[in-house]
Structures are given as C-alpha cells and as structure tokens.
C-alpha cells in the first residue's frame, strides 16, 4: 500500500501507537525520506578526524557519507561516491587517505574538499562536457553540514531550521560533554563499539528514557553486582564506584525510579534526570571539582556540575549521557535492524580517575560483553517479533498519559511517576515529520 498523510497521522494517538509504525518496510522507507534524509543527523565528532586526510564513514539515512579533514584543516562532509561510475571511494570505515581521495576503479582523484583533481589520460576529456570546475564531477556535498561545538551533523535536504535551532534545549548534552572538562575540551577515545539491534530504531530510543524497565530488565545484573559489592566489603575493602552503576538497577527498585523526571522539548528531543549521584565525597572527585573551580571559578563550575541529565535524547539519532561522557548514535538499516555506534570521551585536564569512571561505564553497559544491554537487546528483539503479531494493533503508552504538564512548549512528566512521556513525545514528533507537506519541516 501507499501511505497517505491521513493514514500516517492515524498511526499515532495521544496514548498509543500503531504496530505498523515499527514493522512496515514501506513506512521505514518513508522515515528515511521524511526524517533521516530531511533533518539534522549526527555524523561524528571533530576529534575523529584530527589530521589532514583523516576520514570517517557513516550512513546518513540511506546515503553513504564521508567526513574528512582537508589540507587547510577544515572539516568537509561529502557523499562517499565517485561521480564517474558511482563506485564508493573509501571502503575502510576510517583511516587517512593521504593528500587526496582516490577511486580504485579508474584512478580518478579528488582534493580533500571533494573537488575533482585528475585522472589518467585526462586529455581524452578535452572537447567533452566534463568540466573540472563543475560540482557534478566532484564528490557531491550534502545540502547542509554544520557543527555544534565540534559535534558534526548533516542535513541531506535544503531548508528547515539551522542546526542550533533544531537542537534547541538538547544542546545541553553537548555543552555538558565539553564544559565538564577543566581543559574546556573533549576528545573521543579510540574507535566506537558497534552493535546491531534486531529491532526498529524507535524501540531503542523509547527504551533510553523508559524509567520503568531497568529494575525489571536488569534485575539479574543489579543483584550480581550487589553480591560482588558485599563480597568486597566482607573482605574489608570499599567497592569501586563503578559497581554502583549496576547496583542502581537493583537498589532503586520499582518505586525508586519515580523520583526522576522526564522532559519533552520541541522537535522530539527529551531528557531523563540523573540518578547515579556521581559526585561522591572522595579524593578523586574532590580533586576533579578543584580543577573545575580553578578553570571556571566556583560559581560557574557549580552551575555546570549541577546539570543532572542521565540521558538526553537528540531526536531522532542520539542518546547522550553527559555525566559519564557516553554518546550513542543510531544508523537505521531496515525496519527491523538498527546499527548503533557507541562512543565515549575523555575530558581534557580531568584526573585520570574521572576518565576511568567513563571507561568503566563504557565497558559494563556498552561493550560487546555487557550484561546490561544483553537483556535490552533481547527485549527489543522480542518486541520486534511480538509486534508482527496481529493479536493487537497497538503499542501502549498509557502510563500517566494526560497527566504531564506543558509550559511554554516544554512538557514535564507528572511528579513522582515513571510517566511514559518521552514515548508519547517522540511519537508525536514522528507524526509531525511524517505528515509534513513536501518542502515543509517540522
């Protein structure tokens, strides 16, 4: 079938969404066209391409893109496609291409900014329409590419709000990734972990701010971490802070999660308040705070450290955890298949022990051996399978529906609840993107 706007709009109700939004391949194609190729999608961080010739590949919507550092030190984003016969130019996911891009099919070469440089037997093009100055013969550029403080985004369509306007309140996530560094800079660490979820991309985003799942999904890991904490205490030692990242899942219990509010911002972005208490009174943390005071002054440093976001969801592509310097980005591959890139950052001039916390979370929660995401991935796979069933047509978002508070275009979850506000909020944004008139952006 071919979906009309009315039919698409009818898939989202105030407190539920239709299962077809998750299971229909045609809807996935429309999502790529109307969302992932029509708004700002995360490409990567500037520190992934430090030197001239460094490049990084990522798929934006259905398009193969390359981000590179050119000979002047500027960052360029281009389609990873040769204008000659269409071959992909870079094949390794990341690397350094030297002084130019080189196509392995007929040896066309391009400057690092994508302009056509040369090819063998160049004179055979004399007297033809091939023009070295014509962008048609360059590596194509996306309609828009811009960065927010070094975090690069691509918009494959013209028009719509600029990047900063689109990001709106969600810029807090990126500000926090940088401002928490006493050296006022952040740097990506190594390569990312890449995980393929056998489920629809929306299921992942919905899970990130779903406060009612951790105590259930992650009970076994929380309990195992509690046992280890107890054993370490019995041996007369103090358990490392990172174990509390896991015991929180068991310690908080079901009701504990009601303390943390969720907020829905314009354009589909949303956040979950922090719960980990990452400012313990220990020498490492105190040394870090001292360096923050030194860098920013006490008042400004306290202002930065007071921002308490566990997850910021930058719709439709990022989940950022600023206090632990984690950033996940999604690359949807099919209606039932989603690639995630998981990155972590090092705060410049922070004590090594602060980096170790970030690394421990990266290992325990986000690595390919994680005992946390193991159960998440399993749930998402089960949801994807379950939703192919016609037993019911609807996915329920009823928890505290109708009880959220809206003030100045921002929605706040009902107090003392695990409101499903973020799930409703994202699906409403989804409906707006999917039903916008051609050329119009939500």
């Amino acid at each position, binding site marked *: 079938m071919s979906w009309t706007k009315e039919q698409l709009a009818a898939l989202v109700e105030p407190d539920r969404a239709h299962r077809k939004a998750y299971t229909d391949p045609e809807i996935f194609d429309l999502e790529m066209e109307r969302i992932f190729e029509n708004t700002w999608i995360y490409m990567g961080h500037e520190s992934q391409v430090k030197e001239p010739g460094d490049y990084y590949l990522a798929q934006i919507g259905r398009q193969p893109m390359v981000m590179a550092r050119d000979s002047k030190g500027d960052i360029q984003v281009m389609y990873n496609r040769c204008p000659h016969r269409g071959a992909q130019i870079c094949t390794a*996911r990341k690397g350094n291409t030297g002084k130019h891009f080189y196509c392995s099919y007929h040896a066309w070469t391009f400057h690092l900014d994508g302009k056509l440089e040369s090819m063998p037997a160049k004179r055979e093009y004399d007297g033809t329409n091939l023009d070295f100055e014509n962008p048609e013969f360059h590596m194509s550029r996306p309609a828009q590419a811009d960065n927010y403080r070094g975090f690069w985004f691509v918009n494959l369509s013209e028009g719509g709000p600029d990047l900063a306007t689109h990001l709106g309140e969600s810029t807090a996530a990126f500000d926090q990734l940088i401002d928490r560094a006493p050296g006022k800079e952040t740097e990506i*660490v*190594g*390569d990312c*972990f*890449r*995980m*393929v979820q*056998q489920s629809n991309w929306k299921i992942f985003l919905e899970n990130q701010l779903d406060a009612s799942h951790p105590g259930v*999904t992650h*009970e*076994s*890991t929380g*309990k*195992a*971490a509690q*046992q*280890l904490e107890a*054993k*370490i205490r019995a041996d007369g030692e103090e358990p490392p802070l990172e174990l509390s990242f896991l015991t929180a899942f068991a310690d908080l219990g079901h009701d504990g999660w009601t303390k943390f509010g969720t907020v829905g911002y314009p354009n589909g972005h949303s956040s979950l308040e922090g719960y980990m208490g990452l400012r313990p009174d220990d020498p490492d943390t105190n040394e870090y705070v001292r360096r923050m005071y030194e860098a920013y002054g006490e008042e400004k440093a306290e202002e930065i450290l007071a921002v308490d976001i566990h997850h910021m969801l930058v719709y439709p592509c990022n989940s950022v955890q600023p206090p632990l310097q984690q950033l996940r980005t999604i690359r949807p591959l099919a209606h039932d298949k989603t*690639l995630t890139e998981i990155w*972590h950052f090092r705060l410049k001039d922070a004590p*090594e022990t602060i*980096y*170790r916390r970030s*690394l421990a979370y*990266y*290992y325990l929660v986000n*690595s*390919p*051996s*994680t*005992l946390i*995401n*193991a*159960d998440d*991935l*399993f*749930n998402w796979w089960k949801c994807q399978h379950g939703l192919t069933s016609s037993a019911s047509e609807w996915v329920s978002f009823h928890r505290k529906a109708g009880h959220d508070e809206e003030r100045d275009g921002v929605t706040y979850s009902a107090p003392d609840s695990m409101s499903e506000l973020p799930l409703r909020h994202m699906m409403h944004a989804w409906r707006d993107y999917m039903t916008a008139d051609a050329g119009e952006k939500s």
Partner: protein
Amino acid sequence: MTEACEILAASDSLAVADVSVETQLAVEKFIYRQAEILDEAQTDDWLALFTDDGFYWMPAEGDQVEGDGQPNIFWEDQGLMLMRIARNTHPRAHSQAPHNRLSHVVSNVIVESENADGDVIVRSRFHCAEYLRYEIRSFAGKYRHLLKKTPDGYRIALQRVDLVNREGPYDYVLQWWL
C-alpha cells in the same frame, strides 16, 4: 603497564620454544580443560583456573598491548568474573533463557617460551560454536595464555583472546567468555 601485559607484549608471538613433551602435553591439557569448563558450563571450576590477580582479556583493537585503562571487549579480574557467573546463572537473566551452549575446538598449540620457574607463554587457535535462542553463531580467534606454574598446576595470569572479527559490528552480546 600491567605486569602480565608487559610480559606478553615482550614475548615474540611467533617464537617456538623447545619444550619437553611433558610440558607440551601438560599445557595442552590445561587449555583443553579450560575450554571444557565453558562447554560443560562448570562455572564453579572457572575462577580456579586463574591466579588471584589473573585477567581474562579480549582487546577491542589488534595493536593493543595493554588492557588496563583502555576500551576492551573483555577485561575481567576475579571480581568481575564472579559477577558474570552470578548474573548469567540468575533465574531472571532473561536473555540467557533458554541457556546457551558452547562447543570449542582448540588447536595449533605452540609454546612460545618457558622460564626457569616453569611459567609458560602459549598460543593456540580456537573455533567456538554458540547455540543461543535456537540459532548457532560462530567465533574464531587466537588465544595467548601466560601460565604460572604453581604446586597445584598451571594458573592463568593473563589470557589474551583476539577474535578475528574484533572490530565488529556485533549483532550479539558475548555473555560468556569464549
């Protein structure tokens, strides 16, 4: 650097030591027994394979020479190994139900070096099939063991596991060690 990582990094990973048949057999038996403990899910016997400060290490990148302080696929001491066992055998470890099964074949066992104390560095290759949720997955790679000789036999001070596809992407989570 971590001492065990340093020892492994300093050893020529293509060296072939001239060891006795007894040493070769004892080392092989130890490595095969470790694989059997995983394949037969004898979790009670796992921790005793390692020294008190031993590590199980699967680096994220091939050129890594240190596990500590760097991103890894696995970097587990006795504490984290204990936690993994407790978690994976918990009745509500949802994604472990139904329980998975592993089957290893370990071969190409070559002792790189043997010191005066009888400690050895040994490399080998493995293939492992994992059956999980009615599907089979396949893993392959290289082991390098730093084995300490003790009165009770060998103990692992460091096991390095290099998966051939370490850069991923992963459409699974490695819940058990390979």
